[in-house]
């Protein structure tokens, strides 16, 4: 076996996996706080990428500022969506919540398509492109920056949940809405904040994907569906699980792309995460770190 090839796939997997981890974190935050399954996560990512692209190439705003503006916009989007669409559905049947996010994804996709068309738009180069030599293999600097960004964002999120008052209130809401209400926490506000955070981390994922791929198009929205195997593997209500699951699925995907694709003639890379999803559901339905639910009458 070729070691260089193996390592190359491993690093690619790690980078893609770290982006999956980001998006999955957003997914898990929404699920934990509001027990809604957000199938529009991929569209959040796509919208973030397009906004950042617009800021960078049309308005020539420096990268770091563009990221902050994108975050602000995504947060606003998240709050608006929660307020207008999700809040009226609190307490309604699960299928309504799933379907409403599917409807939302249709709308966001359509809006992006109306505004930008379906062609791939080149994403401006923000990180230096010269590869760095790590051991035997050259690694693009963009990859390193991407992993760095993800690490920083995850660290920020973790400390937010651990130390800040809002973060603690959100954890309290996730553990019991009634108790937190009686403690004076505004559950509605927490719901809105969860959606805002989820939109922010997803938009970061979109920006990073844009810089790595060098161009963005409508296919970015499929990332939202790729996240499902990740959260199932990690456990639907565990942020740690989302991160570990993201990395594992990213690596799995690249390995099956590198080793199985040549045998079957392509396609294995795309389908491998879903096969993993089914297997996990069969043998360990609550994932690696998920909380087991026991049902009683």
């Amino acid at each position, binding site marked *: 076996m070729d070691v260089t090839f193996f390592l190359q796939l491993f690093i690619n997997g790690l980078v893609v996996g770290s982006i999956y981890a980001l998006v999955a974190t957003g997914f898990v935050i929404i699920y934990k706080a509001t027990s809604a399954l957000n199938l529009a996560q991929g569209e959040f990512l796509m919208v973030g990428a397009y906004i950042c692209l617009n800021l960078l190439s049309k308005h020539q705003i420096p990268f770091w500022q563009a990221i902050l503006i994108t975050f602000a916009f995504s947060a606003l989007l998240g709050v608006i969506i929660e307020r207008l669409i999700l809040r009226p559905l609190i307490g309604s049947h699960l299928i309504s919540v799933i379907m*409403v996010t*599917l*409807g*939302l994804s*249709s709308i966001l996709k*359509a809006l992006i398509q*109306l505004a930008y068309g379906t062609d791939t738009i080149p994403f401006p180069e923000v990180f230096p492109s010269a590869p760095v030599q790590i051991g035997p293999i050259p690694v693009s600097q963009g990859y390193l920056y991407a992993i760095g960004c993800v690490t920083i964002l995850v660290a920020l999120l973790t400390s937010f949940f651990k130390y800040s008052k809002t973060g603690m209130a959100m954890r309290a809401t996730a553990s019991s809405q009634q108790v937190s209400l009686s403690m004076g926490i505004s559950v509605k506000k927490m719901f809105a904040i969860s959606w805002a955070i989820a939109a922010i981390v997803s938009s970061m994922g979109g920006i990073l994907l844009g810089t790595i791929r060098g161009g963005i198009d409508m296919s970015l929205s499929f990332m939202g*569906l790729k996240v*499902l195997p990740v959260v199932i593997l990690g456990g639907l209500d565990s942020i740690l699980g989302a991160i570990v699951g993201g990395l594992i699925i990213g690596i799995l995907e690249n390995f099956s792309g590198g080793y199985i694709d040549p045998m079957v003639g392509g396609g294995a890379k795309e389908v491998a995460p879903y096969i993993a999803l089914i297997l996990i*559901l069969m043998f360990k339905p609550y994932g690696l770190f998920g909380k087991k639910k026991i049902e009683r009458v």
Partner: protein
Amino acid sequence: MRCGDFKTTYTADMTIFESRSARVMLGIFLCVLFSLPLYTPGYLLDIINRIGIAVIGAIGLNILTGFTGQISLGNAAFMAIGAFSCGYLGTKFNMPFYFSIPLAGLITATFGMFVGIPSLRIKGLYLAMATLAAHFIVEFLVVKWESVTGGVAGLTVPTPKLGSFAIDSDARLFVLIFVIAIMAVLFAKNLFRTKVGKAFVAIRDQAISAEVMGVNIVKYKLLSFGISSFYVGVAGALIAFHAKIISPETFPVTVAIDYLGMIIIGGLGSILGSIYGAIFITLLPEILRMVTTSLSGSFPELVNKLAAMKELVFGMLVIIFLIFEPNGMASRWHNIKNYWKLYPFSH
């Protein structure tokens, strides 16, 4: 004047037609429906045929999702299995359509029950994800299993023949589709008057209580998957005959979402709702096309954006219905009817 329910027997409560006029109206409707091919132009008939297929598929999905409460995002994959088995049976074994359509349904039902097995352990959103994963796996297999499905190039489906009589025109296809669609509606309507259908509803409303009451959850959940997939498989087979050439791209995941939209907009857990939803969602792109072409004089760029417009309107409709009328068009229709029935003394 009627101003309430005065049913004194179970038979009266279970009856499908509440009054004789409903029966007569349905008879007139069926007469009009089957005379449509005589004077309807080809393109319109094509749309009506698609509506008929959508009705079968939507009822199938509603049996599983609306009546049994099991969410399935794998609908498009089931449809693909029905279509490709029908096409394969037709090309390889020269099987006539009256065998290949039910057989395609049975193959899909078997597969559906297999996919349904996880539903015994997991539920709700886990099931949604499992069925979505099943969709992508089936899509992969359809592309790869070239000897059966023709791979990316697709499969040409032979024209259905009744003896030497070829069902090749829209009008002939219309009869085939709507005879099956009416059988599908009748079967579904009666299904929910039987023990099986009531067991489905009991599982949806409260699975654990249903089990306590003696409903065998394993059996009925799998049965629901089976019946639902049979319907969807038959719809897939009809799509194969209608489209003539089927490829993996005929059944993208958006088809599954469209069907979910149909039963949400039409009404979850309502046969009539499935029909309304199927009509509505199938007509939606056509109406949009009409509107955009009529506006193309002043907004010429609109025509190119038809696909995006359809997505936009579809998403908005789904959200609006979920928020303002979660029981769908069927319930809205019911309310309007009741209002006028007692007008001006409705409370």
